């Protein structure tokens, strides 16, 4: 323990108890304002993050559903062909998928070969027997520049 002059000790005690000051209220007010601002920014960032996540998920789902010619695509593409220019003539060989009329005209097209369950051909209006429903069939899917499927063509 350090030795201390008794009179110095007395003086230091007096100094310690003298002027037990506190920060002015303005400091607290400024800090509270800053805290509220930070909370607001944090809340906004959270909403942006949630919104971005939701939007990304929605786009992914939309692309998945939109590019799928029919429920139950079971295998990935085995071949891809790309056409720089496409018009309605390129649809000649394809069955037009239902509900594609609202889609924008094709500016470019891509053909993806997939394995489809035979049962999905019913969605295109083709007759499918119950015996064949469990089989799969190779088909080309026509995708527009937006990645959405416009038509399907049976390979086999």
């Amino acid at each position, binding site marked *: 323990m*350090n*030795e201390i002059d008794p009179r110095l000790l007395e003086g*230091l005690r007096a*100094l310690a108890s003298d002027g037990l000051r*506190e920060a002015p209220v303005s*400091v607290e007010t400024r800090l509270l304002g800053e*805290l509220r601002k*930070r909370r607001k920014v944090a809340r906004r960032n959270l909403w942006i993050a949630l919104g971005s996540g939701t939007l990304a998920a929605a786009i992914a789902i939309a692309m998945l559903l939109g590019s799928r010619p029919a429920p139950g695509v079971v295998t990935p593409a085995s071949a891809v062909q790309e056409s720089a220019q496409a018009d309605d003539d390129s649809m000649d060989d394809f069955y037009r998928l239902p509900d594609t009329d609202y889609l924008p005209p094709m500016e470019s097209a891509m053909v993806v070969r997939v394995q489809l369950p035979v049962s999905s051909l019913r969605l295109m209006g083709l007759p499918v027997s119950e015996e064949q429903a469990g089989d799969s069939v190779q088909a080309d899917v026509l995708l527009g520049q937006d990645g959405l499927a416009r038509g399907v063509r049976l390979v086999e």
Partner: protein
Amino acid sequence: MSNVQTNGDSDLLRLISRGDEDAFLTFYRRYQGPVYRFALQMSGKVEIAEEVTQDVFMVVMRSARQYDAKRGSVAAYLYGVARNFVLRRLEQERPYLTALDDPESEYAGVAASDQDPLADLTRNERVEGLRKAVLALPPAYREVVVLCDLHELDYAEAATALECAVGTVRSRLHRARALLTEKMRAEERCAV
């Protein structure tokens, strides 16, 4: 507010890291006084004390999670943060101007009146004289006197706040007290 007033510091800091306003207010009101007084006693300037207090609690607001109870008490942590801000501010000030010489200093008027050698050493004058003497100490000595003698931190807590060894605190305090005693006696001789 009443829900968090009895919370411990660690709980408050956890809540503050989530942006809890009541927790922040409770924590601020618990510690603003010591932080403010430390900054004032170290700098001798009200405006520096206010700025440092604000800066310290901004750090708390931003990084409450970073406090590690294993490394020392909350008070030591806050004094350490405050000390860094004070030293930075003092470095930014004119290097040859002490708080006593600065006309903007809170204690400037007191210093002028103390120059009268015939004045009685009343208690208030002794306190002011000592305050001056503390402010005139080199920062490394001043901070140990402020922490250990004015804020009554033990050596270990002061060492945590100052990020130095306990032995360093002890030796600096010994030297600082010797300087203050010497100064006090010199003033008394002048007054006689």
